[in-house]
Each structure stands twice: as structure tokens, then as C-alpha cells.
């Protein structure tokens, strides 16, 4: 039984996906029941395991493919950090999406790929070997495409195309990296460090670069970020999925795995590739914020903010020190909670008030208090103001920078904070302090839309206020660091 747990968790979203595909358009009830049931079941399973794993347990399932291709599913603390994030947010997003779409056409296709997407993410989280990581990574790429293109209008198809245009070459680079590495070391399992002495430093650096190229695209590292702002043509639930639950997270998670479980922090430092990556991440942080400043569309601004925020995680990983790592891991969750809040709210503004542009936000605060409060809190968290979760990551990243001899990281964090404030505060100002335009309408009588946002907000708030407690993301990240799940 325990050996099958990883597979079970995978199935909780895989089975609904497969069944949903064959449901006909009209059977809304059954479809929603499937999606929700799978999501709830998954969360339940994870809660069960959280306790077991906190107690030191680890579950493993191996499915042997052709020699060299080991499909290894493993649940350890690090895997659980990511999978619990994605599972929880998946549940929220499912509730939200069901309300968001109502009875639109093509929903069977949507929810099918939606669940498939989450199954892939779960697989990424649980992957215990490089190749299984790659397999699920690609599955994610493919299952995301129909979601981005869901509306099937010109913009969506264009966005979907540019998504693949970025994704496929980068996954080719990833495959090259993996094959190059494994042709020298044999199959790479995250549990035991591969013996890299067979490769000379130069090739190792090249392999590392290829890895970053492969994962950097999903993590939207400049200049591989172009697809992310374009993808905001997709419906809000998809944005939530891209920005918080699955895609960019998968990229960042990949970077973490490569640095700590494939190369090992020591080797990364020895090769001198960590700091360049940190510089790249910092450049992305700044650049994303600068671009966000220029956007007049809410979701576009949020998208660029993601570009900037996700690189916090990469930065933390690249610093290759305990504090940086903890900060990065914690931010993996924090950013997810805060960004999904923002996208939920953006979606609510869109469907309930027909507002997509920032100018349209004027005076919506009093009219849609719950949504706007969540949005404001999420934005403040992004800026990194206490007690929202953001400031915790920031503190750890800052100390991580100093500890890794990269004090300029502090400057980056400072600049990013100010820029975040510069592009978020005007929104809040419009929400709460400006007079609404006379023809403005909008209400929030849609609990299924608002409640997920509120829950996510509370999560982000709790993650900050209770940061030091063991149950918080920070606590879990610290546990991971202490246990040495990642070296």
C-alpha cells in the first residue's frame, strides 16, 4: 500500500482527466464531481502523508522502462512541499474554474487537460529521477497547450504558439543536458548523487547551462519569458495554473532539483556557475518589474510581476547556501499563494465587473470589498510588506545573499521592493481612493469565485504571520534543509 501511495496521488488527477475526456459536453454535474473529488482526495492523501513524512518516512515506487529510463516516483519532504502547494491550489482553482466557466462549451476538453496538467505537475513533484522529471515536464508542456489555446480565438492560438515556440527548443536543450549527463554517469537518481568526475568541468558547465536553458523557459527567466505575458490571453483559471500552481513553478522546481540533487551545492559553487545564475535571476527580477510598470492591462502587469517574482526562487536556489535555499523554497509556496490570489481577483474583476484595464479599477474597492481586500493584501505581500508571506522570503534571501558572499543581492531585493510598490500601489490607490466612473458596474455575489481568493489570501497571511511555526512553508523548507533531502 505505502509503496503505491505515489502512484495513487498521481492517479487522483490522472483518472479524472482520462474519464473527463470521454464525458459529453452536457454532463456538467458528473464532470465537476470528478474534478472536485479528485482534488479533494489528493489533498486528503497529502495531509495523511505530511504527518508521516514529517516523521521521517519516505514513499517510493519504481516503474522500470527501457534500460536507463527509470520512472521513479518518490515522496520526500521536498516533493511534498511542491505537491501540497499544487494540490491545494488545484482544489481552489477547480472550485474557482467551475464557477468561472459555468456552462460554456468545450468544458470536457478543458477540465480533462486541466487535470492532466495537474497530474503532470504532481509527477514532476514526485519524480525521483532525472528522466522521470523530464517525462512529466514534457507532459506538462503538452497538456498546457490546449488550455492556453482554450478560447480558440486568434490571440489565444498566437499565445499558444509562442508558448510552444519557447517550450520545445528549451525542452530539446533539456533532453540534451540529460542525455549528455546520463551517457557519462548512468541514470541519475535524486536520492544518490551522480558521480560527475567522469566529466571535465567545461562539459559540466555546458550541461548546467543547458539545464538552465531547459528549466529557465518555464521559470520565465529573461530572455525566455516572452510566452508568459502573451499567455494571459487565456482564461483566469489557466493563468492561475500557469503562474501559481504548475508551469512556472515546475521550472523553478527543476532549477532547485538540478542545483541541489544533480550537481549539489558544493559542485555548483566549485564550477562557479551559481553566481552567474544568481545574476541572471536578479536581472530578471529587475527587468520583470520594469516591464510590469509599463503595462496597462491588469493580467499583463501581473504576468510580468510573476516573471520578476519567480526569479526570487531561482535566485535563492542559485545562491546555493542554506538560507538562500530556504528562502527560495519558501517563496515557491509564498509566491504561489499570493499570485493565485491576485489572478483570482483579476478574474473576478473581469467576469463580475468587466474590468481588464487598470484604469477600470477606479473605485471598485468599496463596491467589491472582499475581492479588493484580497487583491490589496496579495499585492502588499508581493511588495514584501509584513506580515504577508513575501517579507519572510525576502529576509531569508537577503541573508542568503550575504552568506554566499553576494551582498549585491540586497540591492536587488531593495530595488525590486520599490518597483513592486511602484506598480502595485497605484492599483490599490485606484481601488480605494478614486471615484468610480459613472457607468461602472460590478458586484461580487459569486461566493464560488470569492471564497477561493479569500482562502488563498488567508494562506498567504498565515504563511507570514506564523512563519516560524513548523507547519508554515518556511518551517517545512527549514525541515527540508535540516534533513538534507537536498544537498
Amino acid at each position: 500500500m505505502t509503496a503505491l501511495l505515489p502512484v495513487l496521488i498521481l492517479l487522483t488527477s490522472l483518472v479524472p482527466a482520462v474519464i473527463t475526456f470521454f464525458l459529453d459536453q452536457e454532463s456538467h454535474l458528473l464532470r465537476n464531481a470528478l474534478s472536485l473529488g479528485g482534488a479533494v482526495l489528493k489533498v486528503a492523501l497529502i495531509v495523511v502523508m505530511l504527518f508521516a513524512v514529517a516523521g521521517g518516512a519516505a514513499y517510493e515506487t519504481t516503474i522500470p522502462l527501457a534500460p536507463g529510463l527509470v520512472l521513479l516516483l518518490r515522496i520526500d519532504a521536498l516533493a511534498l512541499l511542491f505537491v501540497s502547494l499544487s494540490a491545494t491550489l488545484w482544489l481552489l482553482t477547480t472550485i474557482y474554474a467551475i464557477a468561472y466557466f459555468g456552462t460554456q462549451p468545450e468544458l470536457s476538453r478543458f477540465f480533462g487537460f486541466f487535470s492532466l496538467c495537474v497530474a503532470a505537475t504532481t509527477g514532476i513533484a514526485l519524480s525521483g529521477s532525472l528522466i522521470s522529471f523530464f517525462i512529466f515536464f514534457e507532459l506538462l508542456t503538452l497538456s498546457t497547450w490546449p488550455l492556453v489555446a482554450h478560447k480558440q480565438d486568434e490571440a489565444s492560438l498566437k499565445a499558444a504558439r509562442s508558448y510552444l515556440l519557447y517550450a520545445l527548443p528549451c525542452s530539446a536543450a533539456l533532453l540534451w543536458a540529460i542525455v549528455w549527463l546520463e551517457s557519462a554517469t548512468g541514470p541519475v537518481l535524486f536520492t544518490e548523487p551522480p558521480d560527475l568526475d567522469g566529466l571535465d568541468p567545461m562539459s559540466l558547465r555546458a550541461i548546467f547551462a543547458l539545464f538552465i536553458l531547459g528549466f529557465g523557459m518555464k521559470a520565465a527567466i529573461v530572455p525566455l519569458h516572452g510566452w508568459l505575458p502573451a499567455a494571459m490571453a487565456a482564461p483566469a483559471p489557466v493563468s492561475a495554473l500557469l503562474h501559481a500552481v504548475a508551469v512556472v513553478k515546475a521550472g523553478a522546481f527543476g532549477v532547485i532539483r538540478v542545483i541541489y540533487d544533480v550537481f549539489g551545492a558544493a559542485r555548483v559553487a566549485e564550477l562557479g556557475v551559481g553566481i552567474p545564475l544568481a545574476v541572471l535571476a536578479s536581472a530578471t527580477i529587475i527587468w520583470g518589474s520594469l516591464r510590469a510598470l509599463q503595462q496597462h492591462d491588469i493580467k499583463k502587469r501581473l504576468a510580468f510581476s510573476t516573471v520578476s517574482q519567480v526569479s526570487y526562487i531561482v535566485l535563492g536556489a542559485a545562491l546555493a547556501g542554506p538560507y538562500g535555499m530556504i528562502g527560495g523554497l519558501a517563496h515557491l509556496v509564498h509566491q504561489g499563494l499570493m499570485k493565485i490570489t491576485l489572478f483570482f481577483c483579476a478574474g473576478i474583476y473581469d467576469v463580475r465587473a468587466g474590468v481588464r484595464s487598470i484604469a477600470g479599477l477606479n473605485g471598485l474597492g468599496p463596491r467589491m470589498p472582499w475581492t479588493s481586500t484580497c487583491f490589496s493584501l496579495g499585492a502588499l505581500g508581493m511588495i514584501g510588506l509584513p506580515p504577508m508571506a513575501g517579507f519572510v522570503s525576502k529576509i531569508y534571501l537577503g541573508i542568503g545573499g550575504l552568506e554566499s558572499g553576494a551582498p549585491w543581492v540586497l540591492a536587488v531585493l531593495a530595488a525590486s521592493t520599490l518597483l513592486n510598490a511602484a506598480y502595485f500601489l497605484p492599483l490599490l490607490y485606484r481601488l480605494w481612493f478614486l471615484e468610480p466612473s459613472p457607468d461602472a458596474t460590478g458586484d461580487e455575489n459569486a461566493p464560488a469565485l470569492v471564497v477561493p481568493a479569500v482562502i488563498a489570501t488567508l494562506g498567504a497571511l498565515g504563511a507570514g504571520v506564523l512563519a516560524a511555526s513548523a507547519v508554515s512553508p518556511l518551517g517545512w523548507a527549514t525541515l527540508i534543509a535540516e534533513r538534507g533531502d537536498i544537498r
Partner: protein
Amino acid sequence: MSALVTLLVLPLAGAIAAIALPSPVGRTAALAAIAATTGAAIVLMATVAFQGMPRLEMGGWTPPLGIVLVADGLSVALIVMTALVMASAGLAARHAFAPGTAGERAAFGFWPLMLLLWSALNVVFLSRDLFNLYVGIELLSLAAIGLVAIDGKATALAAAMRYMIFALAGSLLYLAGVVLIHAAHGTLDIDLIATRTAAAPDGLALALMTAGLMAKTALFPFHVWLPPAHAGAPAPASAMLSGLVPKASFAILLRLWFDTMPDRASDGALTLIALLGTAAVIWGSLGALAQVRLKLIVAYSTVAQIGYLFLVFPLAGGASAGVPWAAGAWTGAVFLALSHGLAKAAMFLAVGHWMAVAGSDRLSDLRGLAQLMPMTAFAFALSAVTLVGLPPSGGFTGKYLVMTAAFASGQWAWALVMGGGGLLAAAYLYRPMAVLFARGAQAGAAPPSRARQAVPLLLASASVALGIASAGPFDLLAIGRPLAAEEGL
């Protein structure tokens, strides 16, 4: 071992029945033969997997006088793949060549030709005698040419004639090689030749045979006949032509270079072959990019995919023979061949459904068919995944194995070809996907029943399953794997 005979005889018998008996009965007989042969193929696979390689010396004559049939891992893998494709093509043909829909001659001719093709394929996969292989490949070509010409249109006839020229030229070159070998060694049995003492004409013979088989496999630059031929034929025929026929001559090439005279393989020659393969990948992909008709895109993709297969030669032959990664390379190439066969057949069958609805295969006419026929669209997408070589498909497994071998042997270039080819494939397969997915005018005719749509989906799923459960096929292929490809990595 009785399965060996049935695999050759059953299709032939079915073909004769289809010709002899009146139309409805003939068709039923043909379908029965298809079912039976498929069963036999699976039985044979089980036998090989669990009892080892059955060997049949025809009429009790031992080589060099007689002819032997042996079923090793490679042959059964190909045979089962063939059976799957044939069965699906047969199911599709039940409607495509129903007397009402197709022309009288086509409705009559399809079944015998297809069964003849099948038995020829089985001959090629099973026999260990160079001349027997010649006969097999020749019959194969004739049946294939017949299928190309089956609907009797002028363009189809021209395509068939073009195909015929290349095919005959190829067989003659091959025959010349056979003659030379017999002149030198007095035997044509593969295993006996493998243990021969090298002789002067071997090189020439190998060169002649290889060139001839390349022409038949439609390797660049001898691919020009393929796109018009495959695109001109009716969908079920195209499925077989594109998915199966090139594999036969490729299988013979594998046997030549890895079983018959691995000792002759020189790095120069192997590199030349792989270079042609590389050229085919690039040329075919770009050619596909230039097309506006879906069937031509798919056909050109066959040209490109065939190119992959030829990368195996420098990776598992010559200096690489017997080194740790050779097994990976050799098996990977076969994986590519198998998954391509399944996926390509699925694609052509799907396109057939769309043509039946949209009335043409111009991309502009296929807008929005994904809504109308989601299952076939999904099948096409899955096949695309295999051809691009994305996990978890058989195409990926093969690609991974070959690339690993390439890196391990330091011949990175071939790995780059693999990866780059995948990207090109994505590029030319994305266009049809996008068109199908776009919101567009729905076509007039009613879509085929779900059951019929399921056929290509099953094939495509098989090509993906090949990757998900790749351990089994890998072990199967290890049975009777050439010594050149020793187990390693």
C-alpha cells in the same frame, strides 16, 4: 514454428480467396484472414518471448541448399507492429473500400493486394536467406505499387510508375549483390555468410545491396517517389505504404550490416549512410513545411523519419560494434521504426476520416475539425507526440537510447540531428494541429462513427504505450540481437 508457416500462408490464402470468391464472401474471407494472421502474429511473439527463437528449415533442406525462416526479437516486433497496422487498415478499409463508396476495381483489388503485401512483409521479416529476401522485397514492391495505383487516377498511375522505376532499380542492384555473394561464397544463408572467410567481391556486393535498399527505403536523395505515391493512395493504403513498406527494406539493411557482414562495415561507409539520413531528416522536414496538403505533409514527414533510422549505423556498427552503447543504439533505432510505423499509420487513417468529411486535405479546408472529431484529432496529436519524440512515447524512448549512444560514443553530431529533427517535426506538425484546433466553419458531411474514429486513436495510443511500457519490448528485441549490439549501458 507452425506460426511461422501460418504467417506466410494465411495472408496468401486470404488473397486467393478474395480473388476467387464473389465480392461479399471474398471480403469476409479476407477479413477472416486478417483476424487469423493477427492472432498468429501474437502467438508467434509469445512463442519467441517465452520459448526462444523458432527456426524452420523449409522442406527439411538445410542451408546452403535449403532456406530457413527464423523468428528473432526484431522480426516478431516488426511482425506484430505490421499486424496491428494491417488490422486497423483493414477495419478502416471496410468502409473506404465498401463496394458503394470506392470504384468497382478498387473495391475488388484492395483486399488481395493488402494481403499479398502482408505476406511479403512477413517473408522479409522472417527469412534468413538473401535471395528469399529478394523475392520477398520484390513481391512487396509489386503489391505496394498496385496499392498506389489502386484508384486508377492518372496522377496515381504516374506515381505508381515512378515508384516502380525506383523499386525495380533497387531490386536489380540488390539482386546483383546477391549474385556476387553467391559467386564468392556459394551460399546465401545469412548465418553461413556471417561465418565466411572474407572475399574480394564482398565490398561491391554490400555497396550494391545497400544502394538498392536505400532506393527502396526512399532514403534521401531517392525519396522523390514517396510523397506523391503515399499521398496519392487512399488512406488505408497510405497507412500501410508509409508505416510498413519502408521498414521491410530497412530491416534487410539491419540484417546486412549487423548480422551478415558486420566485419565489412567501415566507419567511412557508416558515416556516409548516417549523413544521408541526416540530409533526409532536414530535407524531409523542410519539404513538409512547404506543403499545404495534409497528406503531403505526413508523407514528407515519413521521408524525414526514415532519416532517423539510418543514424544507427555509425552508432552500433563498425568501430562502435560490440561497445557498451551499441545495444542502446540498435534497439533505439528499432523502437523508432516501430513507433513510427504505428504513429504514421494512425495519422493517415485520421486524415482519411477528415478527407471523408471535408472532401479535401488542404489545410484551409480542415479548420475546426477538432470540434467535430475530437477523437481523431487527439489521435493525430498523440502520433505527432511520437514523431516529435516527446515523452512518454515510443519515439522518445528510441530517441533517448540513440542519443545516449551518440553522446557515449562521442559522436554528438548525431544527437544534435535527433534533437533538431524533433524540433523540425514539431514545426511542420504544429501547422495542422493549429488549423484543426482553430475555431472554423464546420464541414458538411457527417463525421464517422465513434467506433471508426477509435481505430486511429488505438494505433496512436499503441505508439505511446510502446514508450510507457518500453521494458517489455526492449527485452523482446534483445532476443537474437546481433552480436554487434552487445548489452551495455
